[in-house]
């Protein structure tokens, strides 16, 4: 089992969700987050006072998938989230030891 954490542009979220749905992935956890990598923020001016806003809004998706699905999911995210500009985000993969469905205490991949 692998966990995919993808931090993407908020504007690409709907198409990423659709792309994942197309390859049969329906479960995900989505959080609205703020952060920045190489992308610079923007400045806001209120009555002459300038503020640099460097933490920008992003969307973070978390999915835990069976190993054989991971590559297709990563491809789908890459294709649908890319705009080609700085600030498109990142994908992190990590191994997951165990998954447990709370309702019936199923374990392993069948719990996903």
């Amino acid at each position: 089992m692998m966990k995919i954490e993808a931090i993407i542009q908020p504007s690409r979220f709907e198409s990423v969700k659709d792309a994942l749905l197309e390859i049969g992935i329906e479960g995900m956890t989505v959080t609205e987050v703020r952060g920045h990598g190489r992308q610079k923020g923007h400045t806001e001016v209120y009555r002459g006072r300038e503020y640099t806003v460097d933490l920008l809004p992003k969307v973070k998706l978390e999915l835990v998938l069976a190993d054989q699905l991971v590559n297709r999911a990563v491809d789908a995210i890459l294709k649908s989230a890319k705009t080609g500009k700085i600030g498109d985000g990142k994908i992190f993969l990590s191994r997951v030891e165990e998954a447990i469905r709370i309702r019936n205490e199923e374990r392993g991949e069948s719990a996903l």
Partner: protein
Amino acid sequence: MKRMGIVCCSVLTLVLLAVPLLAQQSPATASPVTPSASASSPEVPQAVTEKLNQLEQKVTAAQSSADNAWMLVSAALVLMMTGPGLALFYGGVVRQKNVLAIMMESFAVMALITVLWALVGYSLCFGGDGPFIGNFHMALLRGVGALPNADYAGTIPQTTFMVYQLMFAIITPALITGATAERMKFSGTVLFMTLWFLVVYAPMAHMVWGKGRFLNASLGGRFPTLDFAGGTVVHVTSGVSALVCALYLGKRVGYPKQPMPPHSLVLSFTGACLLWVGWFGFNAGSALASNGLASSAFVATHFGAAAAAIGWCVAEWFKNGRASALGAISGAVAGLVAITPAAGFVGPRSALAIGFIAGIFCFWMVTKFKAIFGYDDALDAFGVHGAGGTIGALLTGVCARVAVNPIFGDGKAVGGLDGHWGQVGNQLVGVLIAWVLALVGTIIILKVVDVTTGLRVTEEHEVQGLDISLHGEEGYNLES
């Protein structure tokens, strides 16, 4: 029979002549005209004289009803400027953790000044004819009823005049909270507002608007200061006091390093639009009648606000490359401030000029001037009201026209454009007195408040936010 017809015709002509006369003059001066005219023709029988008197009373009553309707609406409009207008305008510019505290200050002033007004306030502003301050003859509103007070507004019940003036006394101290925002104690604010109203507002209002022969322009003052709706009485006093408060209180924790952007410009935007509408009651209502002068002041107010919004935005566009919503609404408010003393004295073209100048000048005040001196006037109460009120009062001396308001008598030049440049000097005297009174009065009051209730909240409370630390509640419980 034929003679009867002639009499009837002449009476009718008289009445028709008298109606426009009555509409232009206050009833006190108009009333002797008709009886003497009827008495001079001995053929007019008693019944006709009575009928004429009845008609005259009805005309007076009709005018009073019309004026009273407008003045009651105006009073309500001016109250709307404080709550919700100013409360929203200020509330949106503070940080989320202080939104209730700043709104509560405006609201507390609404209640507090109302009570003070009934006790002594109205009497101190409009009682008696001392040069500097009123007296206690109308304390507890003694003798204030349905009969007009001929000194000030001869066609409306004095109750209406009293409650209309109260709304001005409410918004003035509320304006100062813009400078003390996000760091002043609630107890300190309440005490400050009480003292400030008695020590600064009451004398200034009496000097400029009260019967006292010092600054009053319409009742023959020594230095007749033209202040139609409160450029000196309301905006210079509150703006200058705001500057003193900002200097005395010191900067907010983290200012200017830590970003303190407005938490909701949507609230500020709504508040500014309410202010703009309410200002029609403030300025056009200051005609104290539903007449042509009210219309003129209404138009000047609107034009001044529009030109100032454009002035501020143009300046901003040149400097920052774009026009902002906060800039546009700040500009409009600056224009409304500047046109306040001038509203009933200038034509629409002068109003456009005054507004445009005020928009650019106040933009410079809040961006450059404030940055140079580094004081923390959190919501720019001085930059907008103090600066806008001062420049507006001086420009009133330049732009006032006898054609708009012959306040010094028919045909007598009023302002500089009429050729009476000495009026600019009179305006300067009025403005200086407002500055000095506000400076000295506010420093003394701040000292008193400092040693009694204290002025500033603790640093811990300031960081936590005043909503929780002072009032035990939050403006937004979005998750509940």
